């Protein structure tokens, strides 16, 4: 699986959505992505890529696209 597939899959699994729905997805854009869902998502991303995100990055992860930029800092290439 490519990193993009893995990354997309984290959203699909965490929020119970389809891969298509991840396009343009942002915090509070769907019911599942609230503050509780956010922390679930972060935990799943960390597990999937074996990283520990900084607080600043966790609170900046405000959309599907933004998350990719943040992950680049942790040497996850897309």
């Amino acid at each position, binding site marked *: 699986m490519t990193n993009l597939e893995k990354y997309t899959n984290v959203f699909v699994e965490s929020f*119970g959505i389809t891969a298509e729905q991840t396009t343009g997805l942002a*915090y509070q854009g769907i*019911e*599942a992505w*609230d*503050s*509780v*869902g*956010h*922390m*679930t998502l*972060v*935990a799943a991303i960390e597990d999937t890529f074996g990283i520990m995100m*900084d*607080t*600043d990055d*966790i*609170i*900046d992860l*405000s959309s599907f696209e933004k998350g990719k930029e943040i992950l680049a800092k942790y040497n996850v290439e897309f």
Partner: protein
Amino acid sequence: MFDLLKYGDRTAVITDKGERLTYAELDAMTRIDVPRGLVFCLCSNTLQSFVGYLTCLQSNLPVVMLDGSKPKDVIDALVEAYNPEYIWDGELKPTGLKGESVSEELAMCLTTSGSTGSPKFVRLSAQNILSNAESIAEYLHIDENERPVTTLPMYYSYGLSVINSHLIKGASILLTDGTYAQREFWNFMREQKATSMAGVPYTYEILKRLRFFRMELPDLKVMTQAGGKLNKDIAKEYIEFAAEKGKKFYVMYGQTEATARMSYLPWESALEKYASIGVAIPGGKFSIIDTEGKEITEPEKDGELIYEGKNVSLGYAECRADLAKSDENKGVLKTGDVARRDADGFYYITGRLKRFVKIWGNRCNLDATEQIVKSITTNCACAGVDDKITVFVTEDGLSEQIISLLSEKTGLNSRAFEVRVIDAIPKNDSGKVQYAALQQLLK
């Protein structure tokens, strides 16, 4: 209700959108002259809702505080049960409805279970609200220099108690709908130099995850925790962190049935008694009774926790006619929680008699949850622990449907629910579901 003019030019509220009102301005805005009638206030943590709430209290309009983000059908069902004369949705709008007369004593209603959309409300008087606010302000030493940031919704008794206990002391409330998962929230609280925040157990679990202990928040002096039992090891970590940084962390206990607060753990005892809910708030009194209703006076013995105080609600309502009722509780509340007292007089919650759990601080009635699931399959039963409700069913393949319905109806994240398939729902001879047996399966 509140003597807002007392604090004249002081700032009463600052919002994350940059709005600001002094106490004098707030006073002028919230006194209106309309015929007394029931108001449904559809709330979010915005200036409009804040003004709406205070308009009702200051103008003697009994108000029901509701989550404004609830789906329309949930609000409609409540409108049907209560016939409110007005709805506040940014402004006071007459509905054209007319219900039975409401008790003169009634000032406000809060929902017992914000999440299931149950029509069961707690009835509160002006005295309930003021006496609880005074007690809280006393034990937290709130003065006009405080700047609490709203981390909880104002339709929730705990969130509202933060607002009330600061308004009576002339403090400046930092109002935001943002959450700790957003940079905007942290920017707002830092820029506005928030001095205190409130959280439910889940909040503090998450903050730990966000490396809260490493954050530089020099202005933040007080953290309060209520809305369920925080794991005692986590409570200890926060207390130790606070002690080290010259801050304070208050563990508290309460219920909407007592307006909000019933106990707090005094800071000077926090390190030693971190697993305790502390002692009764100023003006309140606890006792513990056995199954026969007799008071247990010796320490370290379990029984039902009873609270007495001026903040004990008037009673419940399930429909409009109930709003005419007078004070049914007469200052005494059977909490439904099982507790014990230690030799030093500190109280500990050890169990629960009632069928509800707290999901991220929201009380969720398991019977109401079960009723929702019954629209999909009648062969079901709900059990749960805090932060997780388990739906037991006997049929395969319903999991997704059940979870998405529950999430939609309760507004809770789908993570709150799990579905387990078992051979049969355990029942006794008279056909009653054996919840204790189901509860065992959760261990």
